[in-house]
């Protein structure tokens, strides 16, 4: 497998405090990796370092040559003085043919919003539009920072389905920070549990049973995992609605 990004011994400081240290990280083509961790554990900082927004204070960071990243930030701070239609936004920074723009909006579940101002969109709509834009860059790697924050349960699972489709259709890797633990467990190839450093990582089931992970997330997660196991084990017996229902019950 080809590594898209490799980080070795990464440390990040905000002023005097060290938010991350000794992080070894890699992500390969087509892989879905989720970062979990409590608030202030350095999840967003790690993503920003991988993108290049934050400079690591030590360690090395290698990106595959010509790596194309599609990034969906936690939120977009829109300045009200900047007029911006959804359609124009999709053209930044790569000009997009009309048909491709329509298709991307469709794929992200927000068809027909092209003429709307970004500032007039709801939180969920804006997240979807940002996903559409990220997909238009034909990314090798899609990076999502708590991208489902403003979405309700249905919206979130819908959003994750779009991401799965993107991986299936375009073969891009996905790296995301998420708090939707049960969805994380179901959708990820690999989970990284972060708290200033990497506490544990591996296959979702492996991580969920690690003592470090339990110490951070306690029993609530165990419940979610049990449900996940249940849904997963009996997948062929259940139709789609049942699956959804069991996820809602985990809340």
């Amino acid at each position: 497998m080809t590594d898209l990004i490799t980080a070795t011994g990464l440390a990040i400081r905000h002023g005097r405090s060290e938010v991350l240290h000794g992080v070894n990280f890699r992500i390969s083509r087509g892989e879905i990796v989720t970062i979990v961790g409590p608030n202030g554990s350095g999840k967003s900082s790690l993503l920003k370092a991988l993108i290049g927004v934050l400079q690591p204070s030590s360690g090395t960071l290698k990106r595959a040559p010509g790596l194309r990243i599609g990034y969906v930030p936690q939120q977009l701070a829109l300045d009200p003085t900047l007029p911006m239609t959804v359609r124009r936004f999709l053209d930044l920074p790569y000009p997009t043919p009309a048909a491709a723009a329509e298709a991307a909006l469709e794929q992200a579940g927000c068809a027909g919003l092209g003429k709307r101002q970004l500032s007039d969109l709801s939180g969920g709509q804006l997240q979807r539009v940002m996903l559409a834009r990220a997909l238009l860059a034909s990314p090798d790697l899609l990076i999502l920072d708590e991208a489902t924050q403003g979405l309700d349960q249905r919206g979130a699972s819908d959003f994750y389905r779009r991401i799965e489709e993107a991986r299936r259709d375009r073969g891009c890797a996905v790296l995301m920070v998420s708090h939707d633990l049960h969805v994380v467990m179901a959708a990820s190839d690999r989970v990284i549990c972060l708290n200033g450093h990497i506490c544990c990582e591996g296959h979702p089931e492996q991580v969920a049973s690690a003592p470090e992970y339990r110490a951070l997330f306690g029993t609530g997660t165990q419940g979610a995992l049990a449900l996940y196991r249940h849904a997963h084990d009996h997948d062929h017996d259940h139709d789609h609605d049942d699956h959804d229902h069991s996820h809602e019950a985990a809340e």
Partner: protein
Amino acid sequence: MSLLLDSLFLRAALAGLGVALAAGPLGSFVVWRRMAYFGDATAHAAILGVAIAIALEVSVFAGALVAATAMALGVSTLTARGRSTDTVLGVLSHSALALGMVVISLMTGVRVDVQALLFGEILIVQAPDLALIWGGALAVLALLWSRWTRLLTATLSPELAQASGITPRVEQLFLTLALAVTVAVAIKVVGVLLIGALLVIPAASARPFAATPEQMALGATLGAVGAVLIGLAASFQFDILAGPAVVCAAAAMFVLSALVQAVRAA
């Protein structure tokens, strides 16, 4: 007499139009990036540059350009290190203005027209000034044109820009340089105190009528051109200071724009 007046008006109008062409799109970025005070600080620094240039008997334009660039780069560097921008700008902006005036008042043997420096002297521009103004304005336009998408992406979100391989610091640097050039060429037209107004007011007036950044930049340019022509005409007609007349015309447009917006919202 009429011919003299005409050519006087023509030269003044050409000078004003040159500045307006650059001020429209650049002013839009100044508004989007909340750089209004940044623009003021850069302009105020130019007065110190002009003073030193006169003392050294070198080109006033060069002096203004160097001082404005130094100030713009200085502010960029200081604020990038996380200091409170508002305070840094307040300190630097007014210090530069005061220092410039002190240097000018210390100069013996040279009489500097302080009012022209502060509020412009568009009615006495000569052919070489015109060449300088248009050269600078076209350079700024070319720069903005060639980097438009990058500048816009970095303005919308530095993080999204970085993820797309655009370095926001570099784009900020280009805007900073464009601002310094604009300040240097605009001194003759509106003076150091009112350059910021010519950047911000037309762009702010265009905002309610624009759906895209490009429409706003175009609207700001048209607004700036209109303000220059109306202001100059008023200046000739009523014998008032040209620079302030231009800014008053722009301010009137802003009021009109705000009224239209209020009526629409109602």
